[in-house]
């Protein structure tokens, strides 16, 4: 397919359609609304289902219902709306059915703002709905990657019968850049052995997340973990840049990782041996890759557009072997390459120690910077 100038939100929506999406249910919220709008035009003309729901709560439960039939189905929202969807996500996970959700993240907490942010990492990776459940979380850094990961999401969701969440920073949804869409694939409804699509000529099926006997629920939790182990084994995705000979490694996902790449290149030109590890799957997280790196680099610098969330995972992965420094811009602020370059220079030229919580020193630097 030719490369086109595509807006992230529309590109993700069109990619989903070409991956055989059968139904979409959503609710308007900035900065993801173009996804909803694109589907409202395209799905009816293709004879597929589109409903603008009365709320994100209703939307996720429509997704839940449609997913139970075995259809390829997805939803999208932005941070406050995704909070409303958490009930349904837990039910979908507990029912062990596939569904795809895109969160075009904005500044928070609360109503926050509509600027790009990464404050929903904890919610997507660890938190959100009640109970223990695995979930795959992917973080694109370009429009092209957003397209590719959208297509991949459906395959992963169906393979592991789980929820796949794409966390795209508002900037990924809103910006336009050249990208290539996949070819149109026909809708292929699979008659999954679990789907409640009408018991014609077969035994009836029940899809439920209720296990009233605690022993059965315990077994269910353990079964979900079995699946999670498979996901951890097979689905870790990340990109390494200039890491082979690096003394220092920057870690950032999505937009923060993309901006950091510019900084890393600039630092290399200045002779600093720095690399970048950009997690693409933040759940499962590339623990092993970071563990390996921590045995041969002098320090890490974690860059995020939040108060330091993925930072916890990096610290867990690197086991305190070397210092992990943090630079964050929360609330909808996107860091500039120059400011990350300055942080790289600081990390490369300062004697650092392993701190129990690198956020404290970062906070002091932020206060100094804001004077």
């Amino acid at each position, binding site marked *: 397919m030719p490369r086109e100038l595509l807006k992230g939100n529309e590109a993700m929506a069109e990619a989903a359609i070409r991956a055989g999406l*059968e*139904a979409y*249910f959503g609710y308007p919220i900035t900065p993801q609304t173009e996804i909803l709008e694109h589907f409202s035009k395209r799905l009816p003309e293709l004879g597929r*289902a589109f*409903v603008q*729901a*009365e*709320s994100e*709560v*209703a*939307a996720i*439960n*429509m*997704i*839940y*219902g*449609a*997913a*139970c*039939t075995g*259809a390829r*189905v997805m939803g999208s929202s932005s941070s406050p709306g995704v909070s409303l969807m958490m*009930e*349904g996500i837990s*039910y979908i996970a507990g*029912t062990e059915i596939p569904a795809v959700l895109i969160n075009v993240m904005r500044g928070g907490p609360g109503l926050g703002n509509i600027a790009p942010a990464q404050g929903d990492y904890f919610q997507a990776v660890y938190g959100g709905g009640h109970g223990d459940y695995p979930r795959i979380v992917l973080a694109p850094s370009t429009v092209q990657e957003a397209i590719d990961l959208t297509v991949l999401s459906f395959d992963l969701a169906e393979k592991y019968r789980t929820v796949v969440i794409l966390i795209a920073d508002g900037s990924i949804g809103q910006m336009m850049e050249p990208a290539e869409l996949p070819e149109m694939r026909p809708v292929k409804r699979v008659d999954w052995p679990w789907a*409640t*699509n*009408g*018991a*014609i*000529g077969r035994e*009836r*099926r*029940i*899809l*439920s*997340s*209720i296990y009233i006997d605690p022993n059965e629920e315990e077994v269910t939790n353990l079964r979900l973990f079995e699946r999670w182990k498979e996901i951890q084994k097979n689905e870790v995705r990340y990109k390494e840049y200039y890491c082979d000979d690096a003394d220092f490694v920057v870690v950032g996902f999505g937009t923060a990782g993309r901006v950091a790449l510019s900084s890393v290149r600039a630092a290399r030109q200045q002779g600093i041996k720095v690399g970048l590890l950009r997690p693409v799957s933040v759940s499962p997280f590339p623990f092993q890759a970071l563990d390996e790196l921590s045995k041969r680099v002098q320090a890490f610098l974690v860059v995020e557009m939040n108060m330091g969330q993925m930072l916890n995972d990096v610290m867990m992965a690197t086991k305190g072997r070397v210092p992990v420094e943090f630079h964050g811009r929360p609330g909808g602020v996107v860091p500039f390459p120059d400011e990350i370059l300055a942080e790289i220079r600081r990390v490369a030229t300062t004697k650092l120690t392993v701190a129990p919580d690198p956020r404290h020193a970062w906070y002091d630097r932020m206060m100094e910077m804001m004077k």
Partner: protein
Amino acid sequence: MVALVKPENLVYSRPQAFTEFPTHYCPGCTHGVAHRLIAEVLDEMAITERTIGVAPVGCSVFAYNYFDCDFVEAAHGRAPAMATGIKRVLPERIVFTYQGDGDLASIGMAEIMHAAARGENITVVFINNAIYGMTGGQMAPTTLPGMKTTSSPLGRDVETQGFPIRMAEILSNMDGAGYIVRRSLHDPKNIRMAKKAIRIAFETQARGLGFSMVELLSTCPTNWGISPLESLAWVEEHMVPAYPLGDYKVAEGVAGIK
């Protein structure tokens, strides 16, 4: 058991659409009656195989155990949304929800209103027994003024706890609704009328005539604290005056269904 009785002598048997799952409902509860009426309608219309049910949260959370068709279990109040999702991708299937008053008229108010407003081609069976059964007898949105529950121990005080909600009347105002009626399960005559209404509601869906709901006045002897017989009388004396029985919306195309 059926084999022991000659077909010409058989006056009552388990509907085909029922499984043999033993009931979990309390003695005297009318959920069993409502379930049976639905099963009989599924049999009569020969639609069990292509029907997908949506169970609610509440006493009927286990409704899926009793029907021999595919079933899903919704979150509290979200059954109409879940049914929407199913029906939109499988428009040839018959999709129904079974919901209590807390589920439908409280936590699920937005979902039921908008499903009706969209004219979602689903059928809703709404059990109104004026109380939360599963959690042990708390005030419901349909609890009558002055009625004692565990969360209105002095009786529902409308000054502070608001007024009962009449769902059939409200939903009948929705242009997307094809068939909205209220029936009662307190005596055989009314049960027969309820059965007819459930049949018309499913026929409404089968013919693509829009959203259909049958509200059924029902009992909860356990949480009302009276006997099953007294409960039936209580429905007639107290609930029927507060929730008048009748047809609230019968769309043009539905009126011809016999």
